């Protein structure tokens, strides 16, 4: 019995072919040039400090629904929701006649280190919502929160329920202490006070490496080796480069917000325990009485389903629905199956116009 069925000629063939592919791959990547991210036309309609609110130009006749405001996470850049024409949550919504706005939080710098979650939720987000309400003439709008932006949107809806008609949450954590949540495991022992006191803002690079080290062999080594398989496909190669650009485009995190998010969410699980207060007001998720659609990814290693699913038991609405996307935290925007998501979101909103 032998573990290998391998001879010299096969070995030579395979090694030489890989070397050739690697060299050709480098040429192909260089030849592609700078890739563009963010494919849909949009106009800046509001700006404050580092943030900008964009309104996307319509792609179809108005479906007559209240506008949708996308609230992205502070981690990474929001163009993930509109990465390229055939992989765009935004485009999927626009094509169905929705009026779509997006908050781009920008890149915080040293002057933003004392911004708190309260500033983001009751300050920036509230003013963005007001801008969209005013521009559209709707007293309440549809709010779509993504990941950490979903957590912020959930808090916002609990504190300002009259301004949100429907709440859509995508890969949003609410229970930060489930056993399979590796980020949470690591966060428990973190002396975040000392970290923020010393560093001020938390470097995006540190967060990035932390995310990659959740699955280090696959997310670093293997995916670049697998790149050799697609070097003949310019389209796939461009997609890969766009994703790379997004993955490593990581803004620093405002220090105080980072401190509060780690302590209050990961270490103290305040949303689940009902002990979170923002701006002197208790965030009572039972105050979320508008319809809620919870979209989570079944293979999400950053926000495991177990972190999202408990939203159901916490919010006060009797119109709650889930959409379990068969994929991961990033695949929900860019995989082949991602087209399901805007369709599901639109149909759900359309039924609650």
């Amino acid at each position, binding site marked *: 019995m*032998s573990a290998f069925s391998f001879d010299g000629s096969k070995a030579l063939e395979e090694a030489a072919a890989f070397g*050739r592919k690697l060299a050709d791959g480098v040429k192909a990547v260089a030849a592609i040039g700078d890739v563009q991210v963010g494919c849909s036309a949009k106009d800046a309609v509001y700006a404050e400090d580092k943030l900008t609110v964009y309104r996307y130009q319509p792609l179809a006749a108005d479906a007559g629904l209240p506008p949708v405001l996308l609230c992205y996470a502070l981690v990474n850049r929001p163009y993930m929701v509109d990465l390229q024409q055939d992989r765009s949550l935004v485009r999927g919504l626009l094509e169905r006649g929705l009026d779509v706005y997006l908050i781009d939080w920008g890149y915080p710098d040293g002057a933003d280190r*004392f911004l708190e979650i309260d500033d983001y939720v009751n300050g920036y987000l509230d003013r963005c919502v007001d801008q969209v309400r005013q521009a559209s003439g709707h007293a309440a709008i549809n709010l779509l929160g993504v990941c950490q932006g979903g957590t912020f949107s959930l808090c916002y809806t609990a504190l300002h329920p009259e301004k949100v008609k429907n709440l859509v949450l995508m890969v949003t954590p609410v229970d930060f202490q489930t056993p399979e949540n590796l980020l949470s495991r690591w966060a428990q022992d973190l002396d975040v006070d000392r970290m923020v006191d*010393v560093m001020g803002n938390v470097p995006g690079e*540190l967060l990035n490496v932390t995310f990659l080290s959740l699955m280090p062999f696959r997310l670093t080594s293997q995916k670049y*080796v697998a790149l050799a398989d697609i070097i003949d496909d310019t389209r796939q190669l461009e997609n890969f480069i766009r994703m*790379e650009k997004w993955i490593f485009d990581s803004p620093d995190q405002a220090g105080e917000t980072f401190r509060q998010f780690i302590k209050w969410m990961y270490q103290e699980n305040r949303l689940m325990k009902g002990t979170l207060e923002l701006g002197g007001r208790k965030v009572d998720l039972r105050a979320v009485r508008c319809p809620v659609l919870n979209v989570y990814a079944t293979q999400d290693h950053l926000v495991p389903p177990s972190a999202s699913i408990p939203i159901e038991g916490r919010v006060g609405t009797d119109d709650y629905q889930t959409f379990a996307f068969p994929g991961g935290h990033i695949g929900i925007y860019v995989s082949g199956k991602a087209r399901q998501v805007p369709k599901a979101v639109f149909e759900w909103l359309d039924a609650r116009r």
Partner: protein
Amino acid sequence: MSERDPQSAWLDAWAATQKDLWQRFLTGQAPAPAAPEAPGLAMFNQFFGQSLPESSQDVTRRMLQFGEGYLGVAREFWKVVEAMPAGGADPGRLQKEVEALRSSFADGFARLYGTGPLGGDLLAAWQRMGAAAGGTAGQPFSWPGLPALGPTRERQEAMERLGRAALRYQQALAGFSQLLTRVSAEAVERLAKRVTRRAQSNEPIGSFRAMYDLWVDSGEEAFAAAAHGAEFAKAQSELNDALMELKAEQHKQVEDWARSLDLPTRTEMNTVLKRLNTLRRRVRELEDELDALKQARRP
């Protein structure tokens, strides 16, 4: 990119050299090197990296880095295959193969990847942050434990604290690195078990790529087992705490120096920023109150 492009010519030459290298390994004209053996790739990055389009630079660097790692894995694997005698009649052959695999990979992977794929990114990130904090590493400081005396006592004590913090950080970095090395060793053990299972199921490994994918699965599994454990979280948090202590000590020294020259310090900036934030919040509250009053007065 035309064929006469120097970048293309370089890459073509590199691919041809690789093929030639493998030809010589396989015909026994040259021993397979244990470590990455393609300086051409590093040189390509050095010479041409900056001239590539911006969004391609990082992808190219990583492709070359991990592509070379892959070829290194292939060389380790080939050494194991090559060491086995021809013919499969030996009943102890599988055990010998697995032993050879374990020995070659345990040693070879440490050289190929240092502390595993993490070594390239995670430790480097910590080291970069440590390097920023270690700007005073070349300056003399009192040895910890010796009493500080005389009019420069406070200065000596500050340097002692900095020295202790630097030592703690180096120890924490070494401890974390050792932990990652153990993960690599565990990955090899898991790989050996996978290879044995494949052989027992009559599914022998027939390509470098299959072997590499098995190693990735083994590595990921070993890492996940460690990363969910208390020891890993503790080592990681000790590294973080040690780095923060070092940065804090250095920060104090830089601020002392800045104050002596009447330069603004981060502490003063923070005070101003906090006051500004408080003012902004207060103005917002007043604006809201004003709006509410205006609304109430409307007929």
